[in-house]
């Protein structure tokens, strides 16, 4: 008890190792104590060598950036899936399920037409028409009469192709969680699509 008087008394200020071995001689000033954590980036003594400029360097650089962009557009770039929506809580008209059924049952096309025409969205009507034409195209390839329609449809599709496509595949992918169709459908679930 007596010897442990709060660090006072003899033995105070003694270290467990020999100070001289570390390099701090007796009577030398101690190095300044550190009051803050070491800086995030150590000071750079020598500036780095400049990067190679010139035609080759620039070409390879441009290539690299192009490749990066190109790979994002390829089908190999898999975007994360759209979250499942609870269809019981949302209005019915937001569901675009007609397309899926039409693709599989081409014979029931004609009777399905009248109920679909009562849809409010004009776009869906146009989509349906173009789809029906596409269906006919698939079933009767040698039918040359359809070629004029196909041309028109192609032009129409070119105009608003992107928007429509994204919306429609968006919903389908989440609604029909069917393993086999994943490979067949296009993978542009542009969840972050703005335009």
């Amino acid at each position: 008890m007596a010897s442990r008087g709060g660090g006072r008394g003899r033995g105070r200020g003694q270290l467990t190792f020999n100070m001289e071995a570390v390099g701090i001689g007796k009577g030398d000033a101690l190095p300044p104590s550190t009051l803050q954590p070491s800086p995030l980036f150590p000071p750079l003594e020598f500036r780095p060598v400049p990067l190679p400029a010139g035609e080759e360097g620039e070409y390879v650089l441009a290539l690299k950036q192009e490749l990066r962009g190109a790979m994002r557009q390829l089908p190999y770039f898999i975007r994360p899936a759209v979250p499942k929506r609870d269809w019981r809580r949302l209005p019915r008209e937001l569901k675009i399920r007609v397309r899926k059924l039409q693709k599989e049952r081409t014979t029931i096309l004609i009777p399905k037409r009248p109920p679909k025409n009562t849809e409010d969205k004009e776009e869906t009507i146009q989509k349906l028409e173009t789809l029906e034409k596409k269906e006919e195209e698939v079933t009767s390839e040698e039918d040359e009469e359809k070629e004029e329609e196909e041309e028109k449809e192609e032009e129409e599709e070119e105009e608003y192709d992107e928007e429509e496509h994204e919306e429609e595949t968006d919903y389908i992918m989440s609604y029909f969680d069917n393993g086999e169709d994943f490979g067949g459908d296009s993978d542009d679930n542009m969840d972050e699509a703005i335009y």
Partner: protein
Amino acid sequence: MTQAEIKLCSLLLQEHFGEIVEKIGVHLIRTGSQPLRVIAHDTGTSLDQVKKALCVLIQHNLVIYQVHKRGVVEYEAQCSRVLRMLRYPRYIYTAKTLYSDTGELIVEELLLNGKMTMSAVVKKVADRLTETMEDGKTMDYAEVSNTFMRLADTHFVQRCPWVPATENSDPGPLPPAPILVISEKDMYLVPKLSLIGKGKRRRSSDEDATGEPKAKRTKHSTDNKEPIPDDGIYWQANLDRFHQHFRDQAIVSAVANRMDQTSSEIVRTMLRMSEITTPSAAPFTQPLSSNEIFRSLPVGYNISKQVLDQYLTLLADDPLEFVGKSGDSGGGMYVINLHKALGSLATATLESVVQERFGSRCARIFRLVLQKKHLEQKQVEDLAMIPAKEAKDMLYKMLSGNFISLQEIPKTPDHAPSRTFYLYTVNILSAARMLLHRCYKSIANLIERRQFETKENKRLLEKSQRVEAIIASMQATGAEEAQLQEIEEMITAPERQQLETLKRNVNKLDASEIQVDETIFLLESYIESTMKRQ
């Protein structure tokens, strides 16, 4: 696989293939070979997504599969192949220099798609080339096929392993995964295709309205009536051959720097002659006689036989030992010491790194220790002519950076420090490995920083893209100058400044990545060559 490599692979996969593929890929790299269900369970992703991701990875040769006992298929990721993705621009640029635009596009398509059939490649490349040509001209399939065949002949593209044709009559149960075979002689065999056709332009103008239905008809016919003639024969880019080319380039430019242009041309000729005959992992090329070299020199070089002999002798006597003399028949048999050359290149890289990082006096000490192999503290100070205190400081700096290592030689069996020799030495292999690891970390940092910069300025980037799109569409519909001016002013001057800075930074970061990748190539080649010799 070190942590740095895994991190880099993760960044590369994410940038090029998206998050899902990245998750699966990194999991496979970390845990080794695993079956499908275990992957899905461990990563917590749905089975469909895992399947999709694996398809993408296998298509790009990043994952291989193997059938194990009881019909379980296991998938294994190839980390080193993922890291090759950094080098894609360099491969494409090399193809451009060797085979011009056609070759460049062929290699680009093969790299972007992993594996493709020859007909698909030819068609796509012809279409792309036609896009860039002037109106009215189209690219012929035959020309593209020719370039493709030349690429195959020089081994720059190779066939992927294919499903063996089963001749046995009893079908039996289908194996869960096909066992693909590949034979050396068939690897570069181009199938006899008669691809007739021209590239098609994606046109929206009126004059080609008649072209469209025809194109549609031909498309239908090729899809439905004729089967694709080379179905099942897939091609991929042969990365090893490109590496061989890079290595040759590095050696030639090293010789050019050290000696002169003519000697580098001689070395280039020797390398070209032994391209196909020497396997890529050999420590030195086949011996070539001086007469052969003389005959194969490029046409423009008319140096006399004597001068050539003198150059060869000079090259053989050079301390760097790029070229060695292996005999006297045929005017002197010479070989190129590939392994030694790679070693010199790696050493030069290390020296350069020490110089740039620690200063030229440290570099002097480093070169000294390299040359003398083992040196004591006192000897270093004397030979380098640097005062003791500074020399000690520099040596310790390099020691803590793992460029130099310490070798203990005890005088007494109890290894007492006062009675032991401590020798400084440079172990090139381990220093190269350390530097390689550092390079991986640097590239990962560069990519992260670039992504961070882009994310910071995302709003601004989107705005500028929108404005550009508006301007382009307005120009197409013929707007006046005043309107265009107005639209351009939507981006204020400081914003423009910010965009400029961003662009400059991103370019700098990208160029740095390319530069570090070159160092990685040298170091990896050296390490690989050393490991093969052991």
